[in-house]
């Protein structure tokens, strides 16, 4: 009897399988949580459910055909994926991109950043239970998608860049629409702030949740807003300028505490900075060609390079090796920011509650299409 009652007071570990079909794992992420009550003791992150082998596929495609494969990685930020790939190949081929094309690329990339952050804000807020923000954010994202549709005809997977420049010039009147959008977005960011920034519940749900120090975040390879949220000054746009970023003024917001709330503030500030960049780019848009001098048959010289850009999620790097003989890359490797950020989930989550798990998945802003590729 004594042993029995002792056994009855043992606490069992509850293994909870979260996903891959779960409303807030942002796709097909699966978490195997080991719970003590509702507190997470350990988590095993399982992924690969949408692994399509984009790297392998790309090694068997033309250099140009790969652009449309990159659309499918981070499908909420297709333009930055295009940009990163095209920049890398241009670096490998040492192609000069005309200034106008670089400006337009910057505008597209920053619009894309706003769109991606809108989606992040909506889903993150939704995970924490603020469902109205979700629809507000999607309302603004819709405006950007309209702009993209007008530019290249597609709303999600744009295929909007080419190696050496751009396939299309801006439609007439597009810049005015972008300016109008910037004005709208300015006021909408205020609206998001009103709804969330000083909301007591929002503060309680995000402050002090998922704290990670700057050195830890660096060591873990976090990138983008999660890294900057811990106060590490790292923004590829500033550190290794690409496209036309060295010609614009913008600030890199940094966090101080490294918690979910700081990462939220940073992304909200990035809305404003993106708008600032877009305004400068639209105002200073130079005339000129949109396509550089690129041979018709792309066949870079044998060699390898790694090039990174700042995608909305963080450092999006491409490692590309050309063998100099075939018309496809010999090795095509993507350094997916979501993948590296997702690696930070385990240390962030341990010790928190189940309800925080969804908040932390949200704060890392992972897109499973990019994690799995």
């Amino acid at each position: 009897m004594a042993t029995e009652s002792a056994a009855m007071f043992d606490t069992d570990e509850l293994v909870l399988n979260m996903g891959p079909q779960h409303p807030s794992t942002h796709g097909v992420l699966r978490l195997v949580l080991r719970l003590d009550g509702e507190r997470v003791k350990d988590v095993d992150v399982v992924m690969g459910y949408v692994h399509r082998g984009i790297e392998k596929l790309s090694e068997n495609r033309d250099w140009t055909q790969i652009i449309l494969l990159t659309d499918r990685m981070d499908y909420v930020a297709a333009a930055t994926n295009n940009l990163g790939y095209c920049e890398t190949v241009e670096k490998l081929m040492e192609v000069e991109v005309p200034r106008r094309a670089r400006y337009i690329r910057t505008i597209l990339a920053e619009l894309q950043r706003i769109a991606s952050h809108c989606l992040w804000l909506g889903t993150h807020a939704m995970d924490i239970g603020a469902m109205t923000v979700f629809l507000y954010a999607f309302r603004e994202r819709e405006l950007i998608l309209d702009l993209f549709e007008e530019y290249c005809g597609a709303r999600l997977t744009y295929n909007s860049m080419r190696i050496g420049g751009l396939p299309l010039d801006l439609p007439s009147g597009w810049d005015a629409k972008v300016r109008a959008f910037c004005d709208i977005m300015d006021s909408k960011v205020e609206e998001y702030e009103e709804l969330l920034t000083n909301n007591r519940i929002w503060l309680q749900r995000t402050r002090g949740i998922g704290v990670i120090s700057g050195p830890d975040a660096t060591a873990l390879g976090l990138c983008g807003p999660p890294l900057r949220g811990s106060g590490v000054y790292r923004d590829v746009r500033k550190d290794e300028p690409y496209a036309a970023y060295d010609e614009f003024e913008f600030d890199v917001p940094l966090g101080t505490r490294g918690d979910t709330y700081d990462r939220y503030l940073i992304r909200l500030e990035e809305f404003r900075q993106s708008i600032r960049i877009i305004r400068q780019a639209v105002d200073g848009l130079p005339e000129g060609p949109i396509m550089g001098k690129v041979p018709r048959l792309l066949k870079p010289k044998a060699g390898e390079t790694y090039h990174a850009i700042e995608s909305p999620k963080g450092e999006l790097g491409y490692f590309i090796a050309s063998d100099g003989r075939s018309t496809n890359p010999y090795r095509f490797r993507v350094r997916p920011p979501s993948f590296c950020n997702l690696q930070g989930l385990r240390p962030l989550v341990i010790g928190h509650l189940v309800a925080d798990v969804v908040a932390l998945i949200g704060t890392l802003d992972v897109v499973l299409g990019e994690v799995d590729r």
Partner: protein
Amino acid sequence: MVDDQAPGDDKAAKPADGGAPASPEVTPAASPTPAVAKPAAAAAGTKPKPKPKPKAPPEAPKGPTDPPPPDDLERPAYLVALQEALPDAVQAISYWVGDWTVIVPATALLDVARFLRDDDVASFDYCSDVTASDWPPREQRFDVIYCLYSIRRRHRIRIKVRAGETEPVPSVTDVWPAANWLEREMWDMFGVNLTGHPDLRRILMPDNWQGFPQRKDYPLEGPGEFLLESPMEWLRLRNMVDETEME
């Protein structure tokens, strides 16, 4: 999930496509084995099999060029420091379109990694990427590539380690925790013989996957050679895993 197979053995997972029974583990990395060097062998005119591959690439590259830097180019301070501190560790230095690469032997990898992380001039505190590329004709077929970045000093470097199929490559997870998953993915895709990794499991492919998809001799199409060989067995294994996964 956690207590699934311990897939540390990359020999068992050699793709055996098209009925080429040559097993690479007989002569590991000693000479280009028939299976791995088949395209090269076909190009050379020798005919090891009566059934040649219909779509063999015309000529397989022998390996990356790794061009040396031009003589008039000044080497960055961190490279000089590295060469001074560990002169034996640097096999070669390569420069291409603005990227510096040091090629180090696998045995010296950890020393180089620690030096690059801790040295004040270098201070490569951020491990951007770990990946590999596969050059089957070469004796040491894998290039394991570490893309490093220094947030403090804002410069980049790549470390490259050449490794044969069974040659051990130490894990740098202790140096940069970021390498944990990246190495897992590299192992998952290439089957590089990683040693000392804390959690070496498949990451993108299913746990019971056979073969390493990113290798150049792995077929692009088809649901995997294992499925082609014995679909019923594949189905059985798959169902079994599904049941045991249900905790």
